[in-house]
């Protein structure tokens, strides 16, 4: 009888410790996600993304925001500011609106290989539209250069 109580208390203690560890890990889970590992992402033409946001921002928000999307474009600018790499992609139809991709640190080694004018496919989480379409956590996918 005494032994049974001890086993139950030990079991309960283990459950509580496990639950606490799960809760701690859930609360402290990091922000970075590797978008390159996600499968079945549709590539959307860069002009279409910008057009959708310009024409109906509310509808485009509902379609794209917080979704992982993939766009192909020509690199207009690569910058390293605030300790982060950012790539600005040009479209064919718009001269004042671009797709701005805040690059994931996981893709830093690939970013160093790019130069202005290269055609690249970038995958990232769409956050919305200001003057440009904003994407975070971006990773190059099947990179190709001009």
């Amino acid at each position: 009888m005494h032994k049974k109580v001890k086993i139950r208390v030990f079991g309960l203690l283990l459950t509580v410790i496990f639950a606490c560890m799960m809760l701690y890990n859930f609360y402290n889970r990091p922000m970075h996600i590797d978008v390159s590992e996600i499968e079945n992402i549709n590539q959307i033409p860069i002009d279409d993304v910008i057009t959708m946001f310009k024409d109906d921002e509310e509808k485009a928000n509902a379609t794209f925001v917080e979704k992982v999307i993939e766009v192909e474009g020509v690199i207009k600018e690569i910058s390293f500011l605030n300790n982060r790499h950012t790539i600005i992609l040009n479209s064919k139809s718009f001269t004042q609106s671009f797709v701005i991709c805040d690059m994931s640190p996981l893709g830093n080694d690939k970013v160093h290989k790019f130069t202005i004018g290269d055609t690249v496919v970038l995958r990232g989480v769409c956050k919305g539209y200001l003057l440009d379409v904003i994407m975070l956590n971006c990773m190059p996918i099947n990179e190709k250069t001009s």
Partner: protein
Amino acid sequence: MKRLVNTIIIMFLLLHFGVSAQSDSRVISRQGQVSFFSYTSVENIEATNNLVSSIIETSSNKIVVDMLMRAFVFKKALMEEHFNESYVESDIYPKLTFVGEIIAFEAKTKGPQTKIIKGIMDFHGIKKEIEFKTKIENLNGNYVLEGDFEVSVSDFNIKIPSLLAPNIAKEIKVMFRFEYIPYE
């Protein structure tokens, strides 16, 4: 509807800048950095947005700042979820906009100047006049603007559950840094 009106106001201001000012009087920053800090004895919370847009019309000293609330990056995923879903309600209020003026700014003077920026911050459905000190520097036609100020959570109708009240400061410190280049 409110969002549409806000968008129209911003577009009007941007277009107004374009029509009324010479093309070389506008400078733009597409990668401005805005961070906020909440210090309490229970927990420190901080987040950074590295893709804040801003335009200054140097002929009139008008400034517009526009940022997506969902572009704030936290260290912990759960904090970001709470921030967007429970506090700032990013689905309903996706942007923060500031429209104001850099008082007595001498745009052509090279070197750093300390000035007051005064304007209307539109955030979480509330429009509030704010003013704060900034350091702005003319680097041969490019400009760097930086500074910090504090905002009160209660001024913007952000409801914090009483259980979490000790975790979130009543006054949030906001820090900003923008590098402007001529608007092509």
